[in-house]
């Protein structure tokens, strides 16, 4: 087991290097001079060269990459062009808010999706199975940013039950787990939960149907075990894969929260990305994407390790 974990971590190192290379390249595929947004249009040639030297743009690409990587490892992601504040602290503040939203959405999506999928797989080909399948198809096909708008229209504009945007009264940025703040979380979290719900339902349905067809289930039944006992065995067998799917979905939500955060003006990493794109703030864009991608890589690693420790057969694969 330990050798498996070590091998898996070793495999992650080149992936992380590659991911940071892609993030580094983002600034350089961007059209135009990277300094254009800081320098005044009538800047002298000397000033331009001085700034190039300060930012290190006068060096070769490999050298620039290594210097950038070295600083990034130490937690220095440069300064935002728009605000002048360090990117790392901006991202750090935003990550907390995105986590609150994504974790809540994953829990809702996993609970409902798991339930739908389980019932559908257990009563295969019944009307409830068809309903669950329909819900999961809708869940993966719906443009979630539009679903968010529809939620706002129904619950904020028409019914006036819940606030439409923000993460707290008066635009407060400090998150507290009280009703005042939580009512801001309801709509974005439910909207976001639809994506993992569909996928989890689909996976769990297939898993349960597959497990029920295996020989050990007939064995258990033949042994005289009641349905409730069989159920426990099915859950035990489906859990590792279902949990792995949940972990990956959390990663996708963290990285893909930009559209929903934009709809609800939720002050997380996605909102930050939206700002960075709007203001063409490349260091902020680069830093946010690097942090989110690293989150995803590490989450993948954790999911693999957790899944393997729950189901040691996977080590061989």
């Amino acid at each position, binding site marked *: 087991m330990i050798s498996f974990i070590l091998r898996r971590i070793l495999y992650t190192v080149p992936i992380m290097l*590659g991911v940071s290379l892609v993030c580094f390249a983002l600034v350089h595929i961007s059209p135009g001079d990277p300094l254009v947004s800081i320098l005044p249009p009538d800047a002298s040639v000397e000033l331009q060269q001085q700034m190039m030297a300060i930012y290190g743009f006068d060096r070769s690409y490999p050298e620039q990459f290594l210097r950038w990587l070295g600083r990034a490892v130490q937690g220095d992601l440069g300064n935002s062009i728009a605000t002048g504040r360090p990117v790392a602290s901006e991202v750090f503040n935003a990550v907390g808010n995105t986590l609150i939203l994504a974790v809540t959405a994953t829990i809702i999506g996993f609970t409902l999706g798991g339930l739908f999928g389980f019932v559908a797989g257990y009563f295969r080909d019944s009307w409830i199975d068809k309903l669950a399948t329909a819900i999961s198809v809708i869940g993966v*096909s*719906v443009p979630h940013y539009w679903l968010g708008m529809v939620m706002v229209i129904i619950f904020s504009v028409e019914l006036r039950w819940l606030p439409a945007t923000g993460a707290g009264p008066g635009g407060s940025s400090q998150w507290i787990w009280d009703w005042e703040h939580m009512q801001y979380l309801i709509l974005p979290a439910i909207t976001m939960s639809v994506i993992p719900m569909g996928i989890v339902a689909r996976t769990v349905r297939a898993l349960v149907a597959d497990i029920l067809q295996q020989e050990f289930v007939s064995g258990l039944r033949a042994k005289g075990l009641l349905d409730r006992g069989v159920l426990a065995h099915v859950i035990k067998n489906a859990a590792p894969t279902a949990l792995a799917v949940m972990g990956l979905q959390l990663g996708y939500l963290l990285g893909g929260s930009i559209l929903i955060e934009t709809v609800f003006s939720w002050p997380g990493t996605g909102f930050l990305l939206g700002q960075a794109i709007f203001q063409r703030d490349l260091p902020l864009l680069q830093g946010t994407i690097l942090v989110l*991608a690293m989150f995803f890589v590490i989450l993948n690693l954790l999911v693999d390790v957790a899944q393997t420790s729950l189901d040691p057969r996977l080590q061989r694969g």
Partner: protein
Amino acid sequence: MAVTAETIAPLATIEKSQGYWRSVWTRFLRDKVAVCAGLVAAGLVLMAIFTPWIAPADPLQGSMIKRLSPIGTEGYPLGADELGRDMLSRLIYGARLSLFMGVVPVLIAFAIGSTIGIAAGYLGGWVNTITMRVLDVLYAFPSVLLAIAISGALGAGILNGLLSLTVVFIPPIARVAESVTTSVRKLEYIEAAQASGASSLQIVRDHVLGNVLGPIFVYSTSLISVSMILAAGLSFLGLGVSPPNAEWGLMLNTLRNAIYVQPWLAALPGVMIFLTSISFNMLSDGLRSAMDVKQ
């Protein structure tokens, strides 16, 4: 032994090539949901092609006094948008750019991804290892994040949007292509072809392609729905298509400010995105079960 193999083999292939596609078609027709989805998808494509003949008005011609007219206004059956342009016409015209932005990246990624995947799968060895490790890096990004990262760095524009979505879809298609090709390459008839002196290119063309393109194609069609949502999402964020073009994601973006004035009007473009995405999704599901591709 040799005689039977020679006499049976050609017969078997002829029967398979005729019977296979016919049985796929019959199985597909029996699937009511997939047929309906296919009809809707075909309708949307036809709508995009024959737009000028269907749309009642000019999608770019606005009228200041008609701004944000509600659904059902005379002359504006689905209302008018924030610049007083006919909503119905814009939704119909929107099919062009929206379908284009959703389908084209998958087509290009299908061409590039399957070439990379088949080459890596057939050649095996270190070529395979290096190719797949490089793709793993792109795979390490959540797809939404990668699309937004690339088009965010490149800036708005149709070409930049197409480019970023294509890059997003190449790794998953190449992965599927590689795994299907690797499993076909191990089959005995490939070994037989190699032993009889056929070149790699000949083997890939005559024996591999026919067996791997089907599964790769079915997988790729399942990406169209994702691509539609992502492409419209890019325009929704102000990347991708830019105003005054009619595109569903962009329309959602510009109408978002009118959500308190004409809420349901603002939601209309999303209905089109949803309809397109779900019909392509169910069409692809039907295609998969008709072709009996296991995933």
